[in-house]
């Protein structure tokens, strides 16, 4: 059913938390990868090996062990850069995607936004690409404007076009794949529109980089963020990939060790990129882990990953579509969407549904998915969301269908 050489069962066997549940006869239908992914043994082993074999603080160490630690840390960066086609020196590690947006909001926004300037984001952003801009707008007198979501969950680009033509827009922030609707936004077109209007752009690729081929230059953004834990890697590490000159023009965000060239009592100067934006001892084992995750994904082949997920997402849409009275959000056409599928049942609250399907070993998320402006625009306080990944099998999806049926029977609405 999927690309040559891709076998979700084999991936599943590589992921201890799933393999062990399978072996124990209590298989997990883990359908919450949009929140965080499970981790292959190769990622865990790389992190473990780093601590066992190469632990030392990175950079500046003269002894061989410190050189080895630095080499593994920078190799992690190189792997991540290769996955998305960014330049290693313009690939900055942060704590997560949220912090990566904050780096841009503070290091660029706080210094460059003026009263009256406009930052445009969209109604389908995760809070992490809204709130940092609201904070920095509050500090600078800039305004945040929103591109609305229309039809089956797509952006109203006419509004973006109008804003760019009539307002002093300095930054356009857009999510590549919505973590709620699954919508794949036309980011290349959007970043071009921004550039043509003299604005910078930031693409939140948290839900695309793990799931499909993403090439930094094709996205065309000045800044692109994503997060380790959603791409088979560990928590505690995220990525800001940037255009080299945009990054190089920026002053630091956080100050401290590692990020300086010289420190004097009368002032300091900054290290070159990317270290200028990595104050303090970095998350070294996590960099090793995200590097191993990037290698694992490249070995699977991102085209294969995308083909596998497209097929599974079609199955999710079919299974959900068969449920009486259900509302499914986002594009129907799997070619226009990623794997997160949000839905509402008329008579069962998302919280109750997520709790009830858990009885059957089915993990789905219920809530606002950190996208409250989108929830308001959909007119619901919360949805239930199922999201597939490389280790998801058709059986997992069918079990979701069966678990929903039994939840409806339990609540007396079947």
């Amino acid at each position, binding site marked *: 059913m999927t690309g040559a050489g891709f076998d979700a069962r084999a991936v599943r066997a590589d992921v201890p938390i799933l393999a062990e549940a399978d072996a124990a006869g209590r298989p997990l239908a883990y359908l919450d990868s949009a929140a965080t992914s499970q981790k292959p043994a190769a990622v865990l082993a790389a992190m473990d090996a780093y601590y066992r074999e190469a632990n030392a603080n990175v950079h500046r160490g003269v002894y061989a062990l410190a050189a080895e630690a630095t080499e593994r840390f920078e190799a992690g960066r190189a792997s991540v850069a290769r996955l998305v086609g960014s330049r290693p020196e313009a690939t900055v590690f942060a704590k997560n995607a949220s912090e990566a947006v904050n780096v841009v909001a503070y290091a660029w926004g706080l210094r460059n936004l003026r009263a009256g300037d406009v930052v445009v984001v969209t109604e389908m952003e995760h809070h992490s690409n809204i709130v940092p801009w609201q904070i920095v707008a509050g500090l600078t007198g800039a305004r945040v404007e929103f591109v609305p979501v229309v039809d089956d969950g797509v952006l109203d680009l006419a509004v973006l076009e109008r804003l760019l033509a009539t307002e002093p827009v300095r930054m356009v922030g857009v999510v590549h794949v919505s973590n709620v609707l699954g919508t794949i936004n036309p980011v290349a077109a959007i970043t071009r529109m921004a550039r043509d209007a003299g604005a910078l752009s930031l693409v939140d690729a948290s839900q695309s980089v793990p799931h499909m081929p993403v090439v930094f230059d094709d996205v065309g953004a000045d800044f692109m963020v994503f997060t380790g834990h959603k791409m088979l890697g560990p928590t505690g590490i995220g990525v800001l990939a940037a255009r080299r000159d945009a990054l190089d023009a920026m002053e630091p965000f956080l100050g401290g060790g590692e990020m300086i060239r010289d420190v004097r009592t009368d002032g300091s100067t900054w290290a070159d990129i990317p270290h200028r934006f990595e104050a303090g001892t970095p998350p070294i084992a996590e960099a090793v882990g995200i590097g191993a995750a990037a290698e694992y994904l490249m070995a699977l082949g991102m085209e294969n990953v995308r083909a596998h997920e497209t097929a599974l997402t079609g199955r999710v849409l079919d299974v959900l579509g068969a449920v009486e009275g259900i509302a499914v959000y986002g594009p129907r056409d799997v070619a226009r969407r990623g794997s997160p599928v949000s839905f509402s049942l008329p008579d069962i609250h*998302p919280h109750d549904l997520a*709790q009830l399907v858990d009885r059957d070993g089915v993990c789905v998320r219920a809530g606002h998915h950190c996208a409250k402006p989108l*929830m308001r625009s959909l007119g619901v306080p*919360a949805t239930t969301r199922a999201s597939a990944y490389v280790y998801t099998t058709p059986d997992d999806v069918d079990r979701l269908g069966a678990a929903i049926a039994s939840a409806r029977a339990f609540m007396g609405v079947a």
Partner: protein
Amino acid sequence: MMPGIEDLYQEIILTHYKAPKHRGTLADPTVSVTQNNPMCGDEIRVDVRLEDGRIADLAHSGQGCSISQSAASMMSEQMVGRTPGEALESIEAFRRVMHGDPAPDDVELGDAEALSGVARFPARVKCALLAWMALKDALQSVDDPKEATGGRSD
């Protein structure tokens, strides 16, 4: 041992959920408070009418799961007729039960005792407490109704 689902969804809870008591709004509330659950986005409004030092009527409205809706229904049923002092005592007892402590013997929680199983599902404790915390906020703000903020601005 993982707690079983039957600890959470007892029959009486589903009965209240399907036919909630005191659901709606009051035409002439003494005080009205909205609380939201930042985790799920659910929102509950509680209206209270005080007369002669007692809770003369109560109503709850908004959206929520079976736990938050049944907890609101059970609470409303229990609280009508009580003084604010008595009500606050019950709310405190209920809050303790939700955190896994036993209910004090001298406090009557009525049907809400069936919610004690919620304590074993930490993610759902907030759901059960939503209406009760709204009522607490309402009663404490009675001296100055403008103070009733709902605890959060969102």
